[in-house]
């Protein structure tokens, strides 16, 4: 199910350490918030996960709000070759203790030194699409041919 939502290109993007990963969330005041989460990765079960290092970060609060009230979050990926992807996700669970959390905690500290780890958020992808400009422009012109400037379309205007 998950593999159908996340295509091979997105999986490749997630596997590429050069890909920029941003998580957009909304909290109880309705204000959108975007944060870069380079630890965002694909889990073996097809869900996504990322390490949250700061308990009182706005993203952490907004994800708690989202899991409480059934809200979705938006994840954007930008690969080194400028391909963009968007994933709509639903917070599924948060790991704050236990064997699985400990594995992440230990790995994060081995990789990044003396840091703390507050939580590991597990996010279920519910939709995804490519967001690269060329791809989106082609889709737009095919789906909405009336939404273009005329000067681009005349024989002499190009």
């Amino acid at each position, binding site marked *: 199910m998950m593999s159908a939502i996340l295509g091979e290109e997105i999986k490749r993007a997630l596997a590429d350490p050069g890909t920029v990963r941003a998580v957009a969330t909304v*909290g109880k005041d309705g204000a959108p918030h975007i944060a870069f989460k380079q630890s965002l990765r694909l889990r073996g079960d097809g869900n996504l996960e990322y390490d949250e290092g700061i308990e009182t970060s706005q993203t952490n*609060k907004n994800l708690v709000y989202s899991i*409480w009230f059934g809200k979705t979050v938006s994840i954007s990926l930008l690969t080194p070759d400028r391909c963009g992807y968007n994933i709509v996700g639903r917070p599924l669970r948060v790991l*704050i*203790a*236990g*064997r699985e959390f400990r594995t992440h905690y*230990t790995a994060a500290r081995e990789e990044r030194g003396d840091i703390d780890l507050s939580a590991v958020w597990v996010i279920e992808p519910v939709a995804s699409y490519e967001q690269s400009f060329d791809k989106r422009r082609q889709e737009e012109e095919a789906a909405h041919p009336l939404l273009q400037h005329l000067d681009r379309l005349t024989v002499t205007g190009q």
Partner: protein
Amino acid sequence: MSNDRNWREKERSLSEVIRKYPDVSPFVIIKTDVQRRGVLYTEKALAAVDPDIHLTKLRSDYSNKEDLTPVSLTMRDGTSINVGDEGSGDAHSDRDPYQVDVVDGKIVLVDEGNVIEEVSYWEKPDYYEKVTSRGTPMWHVVSPRPQRLCIHPHQQCDFWKTPGYGCKFCTMSAVYHAGNKPELLNTQDIVETVAEALKEPGRNVNIFLTGGTLRGGKNFLDEELDCYIDILAGITRLFGGKRFPSQLISTAFSREQLRRLHDSTGLASYTADLEVLNKSLFEWICPGKAATIGYEEWKNRLYEAVEIFGRGNVDTGIVAGVELAQPNGFQTEEEALESTLSEADEISSHGVGVVGCVWKVHPGSVFRKQTSPSLEYYVRLARGLDQIRRKYNLSIDMDNYRRCGNHPDTDLSRI
């Protein structure tokens, strides 16, 4: 079975309360109701327990269990549900308990055949099967919550030694007399166990101490103070003498005692539980505390603790719902709510946080035949306590959702 077969007809259901309070986390509402009503495990749920992984046996101030039922549960949002300290199911006879079952491979809460929410079992810490150099099993000495180490050095309470002095909701003395626990734990055992427990990476965020009152000493409560200082001094050395995330719930110490506690240990936060926010109900429900310290002096000592430990590092716990115990409690939930929140506001204005525990009616307590309030009451109270702390910009980091886990109001402070 519940005491009252028709209890469901007399109060709003879980789903009705969730719909009526759309600004309150459904997770916190579910947790509150599960703590209020307790749980029973199905055979499938018990088959999912792995005693090598999950926490089953527990010895603490309110528990002495060695069966293979899980100690307690965690929800998908990280919220703890404290259902097991006093034994599950049977202890909650005022309403039908929830079932913990396995459906589609997931451990879930079930009520009247409906799956409510997925849960998981608390896990056992690394130190649990080890013994101290004195040969004491470490699980007899320190009891774990998912992220907290709990130390209960005095497992009986001196107030229960004077007839009529014990708190009426409390089962500490009944649990003590039912088991084979020592009255006082050995300090060396405690410090060794904590040292061992701290080796586990990514588990513990707080060290917590509490126990029954010790009245003796040169001054009233000096014996209790010396007991805690002795233990805390040993633990403080594990942190190089620095202050560390920790909480003590004690009988309310005097200013001089609080100063000595603060200055001679690395303790970071302090709690003295008022239990009920009403002077006359305090005198009825907590007669020992009332006779020896008194309601107003207890509050004064909390305010003095703020001067010593700092704002945001002092709170007081209430056994939410006992204010409705009969015959002396409030007659209506509306009246109880208004009075309790008003007094919580006054106390919080002095920099003391107020946190509520969900009152469970236990067979071993004087209040064993009482009935706890409706779920809606608890939701309104939790929301009110959270709002009061926000009004006074009072941090509750010291007692947040990762620590005790029995405060629906501090769960709400997560967002």
